[in-house]
């Protein structure tokens, strides 16, 4: 009897492990945690020292993105000092590593609030981390600009889905576009430009994927398209043949997937092998060279939206790219470098405005002044025009549709989302 009860216990453990495996193994990727360069912007000692805080995953699996953020902000501080952009003010940076962990993020927020001279913070990368930091910054009246958060809840409040917008924290701003804009833009492109009318919607049940997929589906239906079926997968699943059969049987002419490339690549591959020879469309989570590789050559014609315009293409960005290269950072500026650079410059512009309104002297309550000025800044940045609306979201609603052609993502269409 003892053996059979051991067996029962083991089965229970197995079941628990299998079912809890959903989501626990998401994308362990290369981690090259290196800190390139020193963390001060330099400058002369007679002027007032103003610090731009940074919070990003500088180590861990997302460090490639985090280091891009850190380096870009540092570059902005250096540029401002070199140009003596705000007379009498020297910018420096204070970078904190959140390892994509909300708890660490909150501790960093508290530390940054307590650091003398910090007038604004750029970061974090993850929406989940932002959730724990927002209130800390708001209580301290310290401005926060995220270059990468896409969750609409952070600025519009939890009821944005039903049209009730309520700004959550006066201190929160972002230079990244939200999933509302991205999902709707994708639906409009698919229906109006690609002329697809029957879409099958799949998501990975995670906050980003499920949110994006439902925003897309609502807009697609509003435009007149049909959602012929929906399904969900578990992140980390390998076999999608049953889903492929459903998609093929449903007569869909396209598939929209809310999720990230580690699952999207194999899904695209198996859809086509399973007889559903229709393009898979996704958000910035699948816009990665790894997607093309994982789709085993079956990714041709697949589509993805990504926020902004390719940084390399913009005239305003050429200087940034050149300076970044010249600064010899070990890690690339990555997906959010341009947005981080613009976020840092927004803080610098706000400092400049605050100083000018104070008759050329640095005001004593610089933090509050910067926060007040930030809502009014307007300049042309690396990613286009930089300004914030009444919710703290960027007014720049540029997006680009990419498509896989000959094994690489190629730009198809850039556009500005207009509601």
């Amino acid at each position, binding site marked *: *009897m003892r053996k059979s009860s051991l*067996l029962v216990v083991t089965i229970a453990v197995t079941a628990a492990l299998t079912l809890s495996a959903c989501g626990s*193994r998401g994308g362990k990727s290369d981690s090259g945690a290196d800190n390139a360069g020193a963390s001060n912007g330099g400058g002369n000692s007679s002027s007032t020292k103003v610090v731009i805080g940074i919070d990003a995953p500088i180590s861990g699996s997302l460090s490639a993105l985090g280091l891009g953020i850190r380096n870009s902000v540092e570059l902005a501080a250096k540029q401002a000092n070199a140009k003596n952009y705000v007379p009498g003010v020297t910018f420096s940076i204070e970078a904190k590593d959140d390892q994509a962990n909300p708890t660490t993020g909150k501790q960093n927020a508290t530390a940054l609030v307590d650091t003398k001279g910090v007038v604004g913070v750029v970061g974090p990368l993850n929406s989940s981390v932002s959730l724990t930091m927002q209130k800390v910054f708001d209580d301290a009246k310290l401005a926060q600009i995220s270059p990468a958060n896409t969750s609409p809840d952070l600025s519009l409040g939890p009821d944005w889905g039903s049209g009730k917008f309520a700004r959550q924290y006066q201190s929160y701003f972002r230079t990244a576009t939200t999933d509302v804009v991205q999902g709707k833009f994708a639906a409009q492109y698919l229906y109006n430009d690609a002329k697809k009318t029957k879409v099958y919607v*799949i998501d990975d049940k995670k906050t980003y994927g499920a949110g994006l997929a439902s925003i897309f589906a609502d807009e697609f239906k509003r435009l007149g398209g049909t959602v012929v079926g929906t399904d969900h997968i578990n992140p980390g699943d390998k076999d999608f043949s049953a889903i492929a059969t459903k998609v093929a*049987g449903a007569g869909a002419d396209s598939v929209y997937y809310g999720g990230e490339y580690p699952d999207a690549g*194999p899904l695209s591959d198996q859809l086509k092998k399973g007889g559903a020879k229709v393009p898979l469309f996704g958000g910035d989570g699948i816009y990665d060279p790894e997607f093309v590789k994982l789709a085993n050559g079956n990714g041709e014609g697949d589509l993805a939206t990504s926020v902004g315009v390719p940084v390399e293409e913009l005239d305003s960005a050429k200087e940034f790219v050149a300076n970044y290269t010249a600064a010899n950072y070990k890690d690339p500026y990555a997906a959010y470098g341009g947005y981080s650079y613009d976020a840092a410059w927004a803080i610098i512009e706000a400092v400049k405005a605050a100083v000018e309104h104070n008759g050329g002297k640095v005001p004593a309550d610089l933090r509050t002044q910067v926060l007040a000025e930030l809502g009014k800044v307007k300049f042309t940045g690396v990613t286009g025009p930089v300004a914030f609306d009444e919710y703290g979201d960027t007014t720049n609603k540029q997006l680009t549709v990419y498509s896989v052609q000959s094994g690489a993502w190629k730009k198809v269409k850039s556009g500005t989302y207009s509601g």
Partner: protein
Amino acid sequence: MHELPQNLANGLMLGLMYGLIAIGYTMVYGIVQLINFAHGEIFMIGGFGALTAYAALPHGTSLWLALPVMILGGVIASVLTATAAERFAYRPLRTAPRLAPLITAIGLSIALQQVVWAFYPGGKKALSFPQFGGDPIGLGSFHLQRNDLFLLVAAPLCMLVLAAFVRLTRTGRAMQATAQDPDTAKLMGIDTDRIIVVAFALGAAFAAVAAVAHGLRYGQVDFTMGFLAGLKAFTAAVLGGIGNVYGAMLGGLVLGVAESMATAYVQDVPGMHQLGGGAWANVWAFVLLIVVLLVRPQGLLGERVADRV
């Protein structure tokens, strides 16, 4: 319902793969009553072994010629890992309380994953596995992937070889004897240590074949692939009756078809829309397992578990 043949075929493929892996669980359990949780990683290492063998061949070798070499590479990698695990991780604990080797197995599973993650070149991300080109073989809306033909041939062949081995060879019969009563088998002059190694090695070899099939079917291998596949195969082994090799294959097939059916049809049942689809396939698979175990605690083909105290 016109997709039924396709869904059955999807489930069959998944089931054959589960079954091949499950044989390793069931053979080891039948002989030493150990649930070798590291078996999923043995399967994963088989995939990497096959990939290494393919990479070692001259560039541009036809996959038809490469396939036997890949299978061999996978089998060597898996068998070496499994026998080493048996020798150094499980044998010292053979007389220890039963939970000790179980925990060792879980630890070994994590360790093997991390070794591949850390040391296999490019192993931190999924690696592409070579595949046969060409369109699927189709009949109306029914498709059969060319890459799946390997599994369709290899799995039954493996079962035949195993059945013949267990019934006809001396070692096979010694294995049966050891499973029935290790002490008496030892008294009859059977080297039980050797039999246990053979059981681990055979299970590993089948897992390697399954890994090649997995690579061909999904076009990639990665260091986490053994985790879920291993758990599912273990479930299949229990479902079929742990200790019974035919049960392992049957359990695999039942599980594979159940998952495929659950993904395809549960959503269409009125009121069940939220409980269907790919995300719920695992839940339904385990519901099935619980129901089967309530009715037949020994599994579909199991006989021995309950009467061996």
